[in-house]
């Protein structure tokens, strides 16, 4: 297996030439006899290192100085394009195509309603997706796509990669745009005649767009 490494590894030979003192940071002399206390004996015995152990420590120092191999191969643009399915809030990477609210209602009824309910109100098998706008500061907050999600791109991304649960990644891009349009139309986040595509989807203003506090700056850093 090691034969496959393309270039010789840059081994630093200086490490093995270091004196025991340099490696241990203290004298490595054999102790004299006649300790006054057992504690003193322990201290000095700790400083006496057998030759075999010294070799081991030199090897360890040696290994730490070996540069790691570089075994990644260059990814081609095509490989990256196929794998890079994520859609950020600015919509970069959204595919061509479009979908209307009316088309989305049909797709939703056929493929989503079985779990999410006829009007996206949820069932024990699938989350409620709509309603709850304005409830987040109340005694009974209701988190849905409509009331809680900050970006419409997240909805497109998630449906495209993970829905329907039993047949993920089966929707055409047009169907995905349409289902997003339909869900967002139920609470009038987009108009009932909306058509969503790569240009219009990132422009959708979700009601809770500014409802989040980024906690990352408060994390404890190393």
């Amino acid at each position, binding site marked *: 297996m090691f034969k496959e490494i393309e270039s010789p590894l840059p081994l630093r030979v200086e490490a093995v030439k270091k004196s025991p003192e340099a490696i241990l940071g203290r004298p490595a002399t054999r102790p004299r006899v006649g300790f006054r206390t057992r504690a003193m004996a322990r201290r000095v015995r700790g400083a006496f290192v057998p030759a075999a152990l010294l070799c081991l420590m030199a090897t360890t120092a040696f290994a730490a100085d070996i540069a790691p191999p570089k075994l990644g191969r260059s990814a081609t643009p095509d490989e990256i394009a196929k*794998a*890079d399915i994520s859609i950020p809030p600015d919509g970069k990477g959204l595919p061509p195509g479009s979908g209307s609210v009316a088309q989305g209602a049909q797709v939703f009824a056929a493929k989503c309603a079985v779990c999410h309910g006829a009007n996206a109100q949820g069932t024990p*098998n699938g989350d409620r997706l709509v309603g709850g706008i304005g409830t*987040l*500061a109340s005694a009974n907050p209701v988190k849905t796509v409509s009331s*809680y999600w900050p970006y419409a791109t997240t909805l497109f*991304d998630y449906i495209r990669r993970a829905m329907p649960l039993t047949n993920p990644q089966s929707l055409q891009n047009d169907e995905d745009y349409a289902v997003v349009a339909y869900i967002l139309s139920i609470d009038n986040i987009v108009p009932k005649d909306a058509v969503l595509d790569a240009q219009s989807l990132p422009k959708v203003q979700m009601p809770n767009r500014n409802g989040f506090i980024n906690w*990352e700056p408060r994390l404890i850093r190393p």
Partner: protein
Amino acid sequence: MGKKQDVTELFGEPVAGNGLLHRRFFLQSSAALAGAAASPALAESIGAGSPPTMLKPGAQFNAYGMPSHWRDNIKRILATNVPPAREVTGSIRTPLQYLEGTITPAGLHYVRNHNGTPDIDPSKHELLIHGMVRQPSIFTVDSLMRYPMRTEIHFMECAGNSGGIAGAAMPQQATAGDLHGLLSGSEWTGVKLSTLLDEVGVDPRAAWMLAEGADAAGMSRSVPVWKAMDDAMIALYQNGEPIRPEQGFPMRLLLPGFEGNTNVKWLRRLKLMDGPMYTKDETSRYTELQPDGKAREFMLQMEPKSVILKPSFSVDMQGPGYYEISGVAWSGLGRVRKVDISADGGKTWAEAALTNPVLPKALTRFRLPWMWNGGPAVLMSRTTDEKGRVQPTHAEWLAQYAPRQNFHFNAIQSWAIGANGKVSNVYV
């Protein structure tokens, strides 16, 4: 009275209310407790005095060993009444109350899946690192096996662990595993992520990294680059064997101390970015609503927490006398500094002994001797980590968030002991 004097002689005076003894007791008492063994009566054949297992050969070798069938009650806990579509999207929990030490057997490690466990052929699986890097690169599983490896012990905890308690007005009478079992501890071995990031050359302007799994949910999360460069690992082994399918075979992202969900299993892609992706699981989920209606996002570190496991619900007392209180403590911020135990509902506290090694971002076993007098008691554990963070009380935790929020619950767990020795879950 005479009996009390004997107890004091053996164990010293209690150091906190309701019979908690000093943790030093463990070091002093072993000689005092050792008894004399009775000498067996001799018989003509010694077999007559031996247990049956000594009289015939035992079972054959197994290619992969299994736990004792005498303990086949030790199983992971699946939530009951799971709707059909959610059998692949829920979780199965670690039976914490039956386990000791700090390492969870791989087969009992909790699992939180978002659309089932994929069956991945490692010879076809690759890791792509791209985005704001000098050289977008692909790593095969075999190539990763050739990098320098690290071995570290860390806990894994789902951000939703104990969330049922947060949302329940009345305390649920359920085992520690039911309540807190989205928690496990393992030894992980793999490649330091910074080694790979150095190889591909990260653009200094990159601040976030998307991690994506190859499961049917395409699980994806954004994490800060400083974490990726600090102690993140591409984990290939768990407890000495190749990481199991349920834990991400052939590889998972390991982010010590971060919420479980960010430790993406079946890792297939890392994308370096200038900002977060805002995926479904960092917006609709794993965010926590405050009372003012604003939600905290990227609350990624698991705060200090502890739970007493012996005794706990269903691990009941067997009459008055000596017991060892035992449980686990952990913090996503570093080492556990100390664990305090109360047996009187928080009025007085005694410091528990920590079992070595006490490792950063790892489960730490604590123990304290206890002389239970047979009367009512309320046991609580409260940990403080090396950053000085302290576990909040139940009320303090609830006050931070809106009603029925269930992520990052780390309040003190209280167990009430009844006069009959039964243990129940209580809010204090």
